[in-house]
């Protein structure tokens, strides 16, 4: 059988297979059965085996055909930029604080990635941070991370 799935789908299915394999290997080190009933390792073992089998079967039998246009760099580039910006934003949460980190992430996405005008980008990013701070910090009392400047 010739596999015609997109590389992304192969990666996804293999990630599931990998997770299943890890669960199986770890579960084998746990107690599987105790008295009449399954113990801690039984269901993780079963889930792992099922996940491996089902993921491989799904990849071989029901994967989407590889569409080169859809898999082109252009369609993947923007989500990857968003993921990278988010990762930077999350990494900055404890360093620069919630307000600054999220503001910069949003401003980057609006102004640089989406190429929106400066003022609307600033207002959208600033307004969102202000509303979120009011709701979560002031109203719900959530201690959102602060930066060295106290917010």
């Amino acid at each position, binding site marked *: 059988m010739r596999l015609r799935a*997109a590389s*992304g*789908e192969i*990666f*996804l299915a293999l990630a*599931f297979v990998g*997770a299943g394999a890890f*669960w199986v290997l*770890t579960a084998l080190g*746990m*107690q599987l059965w*105790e*008295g*009449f*009933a*399954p*113990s*801690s390792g039984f*269901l*993780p073992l079963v*889930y*792992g085996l*099922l*996940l491996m089998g*089902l*993921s491989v*079967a*799904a990849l071989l039998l*029901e994967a989407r055909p590889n569409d080169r246009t859809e898999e082109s760099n252009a369609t993947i*580039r*923007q*989500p990857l930029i*968003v*993921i990278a910006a*988010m*990762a930077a*934003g*999350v990494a900055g*949460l404890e360093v620069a604080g*919630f307000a600054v980190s*999220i503001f910069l*992430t*949003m401003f980057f*996405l*609006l102004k640089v990635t*989406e190429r*929106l005008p400066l003022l*609307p980008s600033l207002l*959208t*990013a600033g307004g*969102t*941070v202000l509303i*979120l701070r009011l*709701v*979560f910090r002031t109203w*719900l009392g*959530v*201690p*959102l*991370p602060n930066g060295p400047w106290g917010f």
Partner: protein
Amino acid sequence: MSVLADLAAGFAGALTPWNLLMCFAGVFAGQLVGALPGIGPSAAIALLLPLTFGGDPTSAIILFAGIYYGAQYGGTLTSVLISVPGEPSSVMTSLDGYQMALKGRAGTALGIAAIGSFFAGTIATLGLMILAPPLARAALAFGPPEYFALVVLGLTALAAVGGSVLKGLSAGVFGLLISTIGIDQQTGVARFAFDQVWLLDGIGFIVITVALFGIGEVLSSVGKPAPAPITNVGNVLPSREEWRQSRMPILRGSVIGFLVGVLPATGATIASFIAYIVEKKVSRNPEKFGTGAIEGVAGPEASNNAAAGGAMVPMLALGVPGSGTTAIILGALIMFGIRPGPELFDKNSALVWTVIASMYIGNVMLLVMNLPLAGLFAKLLRVPYPYLYPPILALCVAGVYSQANSIQDVWMLLGFGVLGWLMMRYDWPAAPMILGLVLGVIFENSLRQSMTLSHGSLTIFFTRPVSAFLLACSLLAITAPLIIKLMQSRKQVPA
């Protein structure tokens, strides 16, 4: 009489100022997210979960239910005005609704959809009121084997309704697998926690839900070009002739939608497909369908709204969700410490009846909002998506962080968000994964209790009639799509 008394008590609860506000907020938010491509009711509920945690569960479920059925109304706007369904359940509406809009009858299409949705929503709520309590009473006799079989049915049925049974089942099993992270409640053993204290409680339902339906949906939508909407809505009230043409499709759609919605995991999308096909079959002019037939809007729209109400029946009475969104509402119930299932009507009767009563009120609100304000909502479609998604991402981060003040949770959010994006991109359904995660603990406990009851014999699942019946239904749910696919592929092979 008891039902009427319960409903009266429900109305008393639903008509309090706070619950009325929650109901309005829910249907309004539902209408918005239904209309805006790139964010659906599942994502909206996921995003609002953190804000409701610690509050009154009844108000929260009123809000979530409002979002769910409100989104069915909202999805119509994009279907009619830009031929892009805001919701999968509005796909059929776009066939004739958009053609009507191109002919200058956008207002009529939206008007009949709103009226049909109101009737259907009301009929479905009535059906829910009549059907759910006896179903829950009958299910009160359920023991661990029946619960086990019920969870199996829920997972298999939800997995089976997507494009691929195998992908759906994989996602469901992955959700079950994730549910084993943390301390095993029965034995006290830490499983898959990697010596990390923050993993001992497992991965939060909110983290996964917001990641898959919030971040995942945003990543799937960025960079996609948005079509220009038709914003000239015009008169929304249908003429006498148009009403005459629509009333039977609305009635048929309501009945079909409710019945399909009641079946576990079928949901509004399948209901609207069936309603459209039925209308085309019974029409004297089937050739008109696809060119702007008002029956092609009235039937599916009534059907998808009735199905949203119908899907609440198995969710409330049995604890088996009828759709992906109700799977999230189910998770929310568990998050609030309420055990969904047959005992819900008994132990949380006030919650259930208040939610049911709020659905009547919400449908009236939606009708009032949609007829005069359809033009205003249409203008919302002009808001470019690049302005919407950065605030959605920021809300996801703040919401997930607020659960446990944990940066690790935010990293998990990003990781599972990427997984959600890949799953959407390659048509691996995320809803079964949520259901697996939500029902994982109940599944494991009921399996252990059943095996202890039977002294380790698996026959307990097949010798008890209800359990055997539910497992047979599960088997049917998996095999039927595979057999149909096999038969179709054989037909395509020339002799």
